[in-house]
């Protein structure tokens, strides 16, 4: 196996703008001048322009961009613009979920398994019909999150205490390799990408990712960076952990079928087993602990679960529509 090359050793180049908002943000970062835009206007809250602008602003808190001053992370004008983009995004999420605030009910739908494929699931499609190019596209798109896997959820740790904190940290410890660098889940993902002959450099596929992908990652950053949304962050984390095991098994089977290498399979095999544990711990102790400490957060936890489902459904619709018409789900060709 070739020597491991750390995807985050360098920061990516700024992406290409997708409209006036993302254009303003990218220009401001490039020139160091304050952005002129102060409001989202009538931009589509789930559209390319707003989602890319938000993504770039959030990315300042993770890996930043090449030749962009790191101090921009706390630039008041950029933070003000970010807030004006977050508000319509959050409003659209609330409008799209209409939750009744019941965590048990929100989780119940995720804790049953359909007999068969309902035609809406990406992992079912890949399991049964996925070809190598589908899996490469999928892995490239998901790399926006998985190369920083579990990082957005670490923001919530200082906002928790007691049982919820102990359990959240234990799960995150597992995500970060349980003390072993080679087992960090983000690194397992980079190995998977290598097996699929994808570029593993952090942020490489940002320009290729449609708004529906950016929104799934922006959701985590939004929930993670706001203490007021700590309940939603925990709900998001639970939704992902609860649904990950069966989905991961289908993806492992798909990768095996198309002849991907051992690292590609290992990533998903690890998640079948790890997330069966994480699901139990997150439901019992992270959600259970948080509800015991702060029962008023229940509607927020339910909102986080439902918002995750909303954006994952939008993404699945986009991917499946493209693939079923035998065309790319990316904004441009892979390589």
């Amino acid at each position, binding site marked *: 196996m070739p020597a491991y090359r750390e995807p985050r050793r360098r920061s990516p180049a700024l992406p290409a703008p997708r409209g006036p908002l993302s254009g303003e943000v990218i220009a401001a970062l490039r020139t160091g001048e304050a952005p002129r835009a102060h409001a989202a206007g009538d931009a589509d809250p789930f559209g390319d322009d707003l989602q890319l602008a938000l993504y770039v602003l959030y990315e300042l808190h993770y890996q930043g961009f090449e030749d962009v001053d790191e101090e921009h992370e706390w630039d008041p004008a950029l933070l003000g613009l970010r807030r004006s983009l977050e508000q319509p995004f959050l409003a659209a999420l609330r409008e799209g979920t209409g939750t009744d605030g019941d965590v048990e009910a929100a989780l119940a739908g995720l804790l049953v*398994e359909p007999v068969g494929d309902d035609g809406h*699931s990406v992992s079912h499609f890949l399991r049964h019909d996925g070809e190598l190019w589908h899996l490469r596209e999928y892995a490239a798109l998901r790399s926006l999150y998985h190369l920083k896997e579990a990082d957005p959820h670490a923001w919530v740790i200082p906002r928790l205490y007691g049982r919820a904190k102990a359990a959240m940290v234990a799960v995150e410890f597992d995500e970060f390799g*349980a003390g072993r660098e080679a087992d960090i889940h983000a690194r397992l993902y980079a190995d998977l990408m290598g097996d699929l002959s994808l570029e593993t450099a952090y942020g490489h596929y940002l320009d290729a990712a449609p708004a529906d992908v950016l929104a799934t990652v922006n959701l985590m950053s939004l929930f993670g960076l706001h203490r007021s949304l700590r309940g939603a962050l925990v709900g998001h984390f639970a939704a992902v952990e609860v649904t990950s095991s*069966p*989905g991961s*098994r289908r993806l492992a089977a798909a990768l095996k079928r198309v002849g991907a290498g051992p690292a590609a399979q290992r990533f998903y095999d690890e998640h079948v087993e790890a997330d069966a544990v994480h699901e139990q711990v997150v439901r019992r102790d992270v959600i259970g602990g948080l509800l015991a400490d702060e029962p008023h957060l229940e509607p927020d936890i339910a909102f986080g679960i439902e918002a995750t489902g909303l954006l994952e459904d939008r993404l699945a619709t986009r991917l499946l529509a493209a693939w079923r018409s035998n065309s790319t789900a990316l904004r441009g060709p892979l390589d």
Partner: protein
Amino acid sequence: MPNSPERSGRPARVTLGGDGPLLVEGPVEVVGDDGTLYTSRRFTAAICTCRKTRTHPWCDTSHRRRVKPEPHPDDATDRTDGTDRTDGTDRTDGAA
């Protein structure tokens, strides 16, 4: 810290989880019927109790109740290619 040697001296905790797996503080070794030794170094291991798991002896969420999905225009449930289509749902397809 999970997996800390400081646990030695105090009993490992096992949590009974309704119709789900047994949760056992790790690291843990499980001996199978045939003497096979399985090791988990995770902070907690989830041991299958429903005997449906395909990652024996660890839980893989196969205990979950199965439901018929809503019909869908593009649905492929009537296909008879012999592949296993009862392998679970997800609203999210990502791994955690």
